[in-house]
């Protein structure tokens, strides 16, 4: 039995490494995904396009603008001379922030009166608006402190909310995103590889040929999934290394726990891949089915939208989503140094889900045709 499994595993690896597209799926795509997501899927705010409206024209107002720009968060691209210009720029989406300093700013400061700065924000993207407001506030407060007055009031008005495409309640974006992306990358690669590898045998006719050999279904299933489990682990190492070295994600918890829970996570991912391969007849169908599963799994994982906010029916559905558990686990380990004591409910659920999925798919897998 072990011998036969080993032979299938070896065969699978030979095939994998001879196929250039497969190599791309294994090596290039995960790294690319992580880098693209790591940089692009970010809610950090930098280089915010800003207009300034300076009615005071004093050294103090210029100094404040200089500080805004020097922070790196604001890029002052427009010096306007009327409020209508601000309106126009914001309507066209050319600026997100406008800072207006009224006449009397410097004299108020000198006299020790309360000086006012008006910050106008485009609230279309509420995240950016909130973050920009926060940054501006900090810089202006710091400036006031340096002047020794502490008397600048920032009036945040004109925050008009036109629409809300989505919302992201978190502001620590990279630390929050990258561990999630690790989970996604492993899932996509392993799902694709498993479902495609089995369906390919069916498509090219080797499956019929294998059915007539004395190989047992369990030997075939293990022989087919072990290579992808190993690749899943390799992927984990690769992507984690990039996350730590390239994105400076803090790794506060235990590597051992991370790998153990990855193994449990792979159980359900490979099981899902296997399940897809029992319903799909062609590689295209397998590809379609993989994405039909993967996209909702990501959307309903709690990564972008909190599960508590979903309709109750869908909330129940997410119990079948391995990502739901693994995201909690991987973030807990990376960011909070959570141990088994905290994560055991997730790990146990993930394990039971894995056993369930593997059992169902193995039962659907037969050595006979209908």
């Amino acid at each position, binding site marked *: 039995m072990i011998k036969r499994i080993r032979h299938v595993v070896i*065969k699978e690896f030979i095939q994998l490494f001879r196929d250039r597209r497969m190599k791309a799926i294994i090596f290039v795509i995960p790294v690319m995904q992580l880098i693209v997501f790591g940089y692009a899927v970010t809610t950090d705010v930098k280089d915010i396009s800003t207009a300034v409206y300076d009615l005071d024209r004093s050294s103090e107002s210029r100094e404040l603008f200089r500080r805004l720009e020097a922070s790196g968060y604001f890029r002052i691209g427009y010096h306007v001379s009327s409020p209508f210009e601000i309106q126009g720029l914001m309507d066209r989406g050319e600026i997100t922030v406008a800072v207006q300093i009224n006449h009397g700013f410097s004299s108020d400061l000198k006299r020790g009166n309360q000086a006012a700065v008006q910050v106008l924000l485009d609230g279309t993207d509420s995240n950016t608006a909130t973050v920009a407001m926060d940054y501006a506030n900090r810089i202006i407060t710091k400036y006031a402190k340096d002047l020794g007055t502490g008397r600048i009031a920032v009036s945040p008005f004109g925050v008009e909310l036109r629409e809300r495409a989505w919302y992201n309640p978190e502001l620590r974006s990279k630390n929050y995103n990258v561990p999630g992306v690790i989970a996604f990358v492993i899932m996509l690669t392993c799902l694709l590889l498993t479902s495609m590898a089995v369906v390919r045998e069916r498509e090219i*006719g*080797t499956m019929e040929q294998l059915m*007539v*050999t004395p190989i047992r279904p369990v030997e075939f299933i293990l022989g087919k999934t072990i290579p992808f489990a190993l690749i899943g682990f390799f992927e984990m190492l690769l992507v984690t290394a990039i996350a730590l070295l390239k994105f400076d994600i803090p790794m506060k918890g235990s590597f051992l726990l991370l790998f153990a829970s990855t193994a449990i996570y792979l159980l359900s991912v490979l099981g899902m891949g296997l399940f897809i391969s029992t319903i799909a007849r062609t590689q295209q169908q397998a590809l379609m089915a993989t994405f039909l599963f993967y996209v909702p799994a990501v959307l309903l994982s709690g990564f972008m939208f909190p599960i508590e906010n979903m309709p109750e029916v869908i909330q129940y559905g997410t119990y079948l989503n391995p990502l739901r558990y693994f995201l909690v686990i991987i973030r807990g380990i990376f960011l909070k140094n959570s141990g088994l004591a905290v994560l055991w409910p997730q790990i146990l659920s993930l394990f039971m889900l894995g056993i369930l999925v593997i059992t169902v798919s193995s039962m659907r897998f037969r050595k*006979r*045709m209908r």
Partner: protein
Amino acid sequence: MSRYISNNIIPAIKTSGLTKTFGDTIAVDGLNLEIRKGELFGLVGPDGAGKTTAIRMLSAIMEPTKGEAWVAGHSVISEGETVKEKIGYMSQRFGLYEDLTVIENILFYADLYDVPKKERPLRIESLLGFSNLTPFQDRLAGRLSGGMKQKLGLACTLIHTPEVLFLDEPTNGVDPVSRRDFWKILYDLLKEGVTIFASTSYLDEAERCTRVCLMNKGSILMDDNPAAIKRSLGLPMFEMWSDEARKAAEIIKTVKGVHSASLYGNKLHVAVNSRELMDDIIIELGRSGITIRGHREILPSIEDIFISRVERQ
């Protein structure tokens, strides 16, 4: 070789009322067969006759709806896995791993069948030898010609020295020269005592079998050796040449006493109740302005017999 010459009492293949239905369609309808060891059994029939379904059931990869079958003395229903160890099965489109080399393909099947390591070198050498694949053993299977792929498929099926070999349209889409080579290999296997069960839609191949069975719409119409089948018509058959063979065939079919008339290019094969009828036919054709370049009596081919039987059904 000696393992094949065990007792000859147990038939290599036996079926009893073997039936397979897919929904409302009956693919195989109550098949009763008994095939002795060492036979080269040819299952002939048009596409959709149920040949593949029959072979799949006998190879224990498809559950029969009704009936039972025994291969190499074991039930395909209750002892499917034992049957699988004793047979070789080459499906219509033998699935080779095209990204593995010739030798890797063979070794993979050797591994699956647990062929002992000691026996392998000799076995592989002889399989590569008879299939003329020795010079190509490191070539990727995907880069072989159609005929070579077919032979590699056969080599993979034979790696574990099966007692019964099932071939589903093995030479479909293979060039005539490769087809001849392939049949030569089958004869060599037959000498070793292997029982071969092959389906084919080439009727010239049927003549090479020791026993031929005509299948149509799931049931068996004829089952005998090729010579007996050829005699089975029991009517004289004539070959005729005409430039307007198609038109001639239409007219001939209307003549009373004509059993069948089938077209082979510009030739016609006509089965008649009596030899005297030929004169009537020629007169009848003359009336329609069709001239006959000549005619002679021939021994019907298996094709003639089968066409006439299938048409009658």
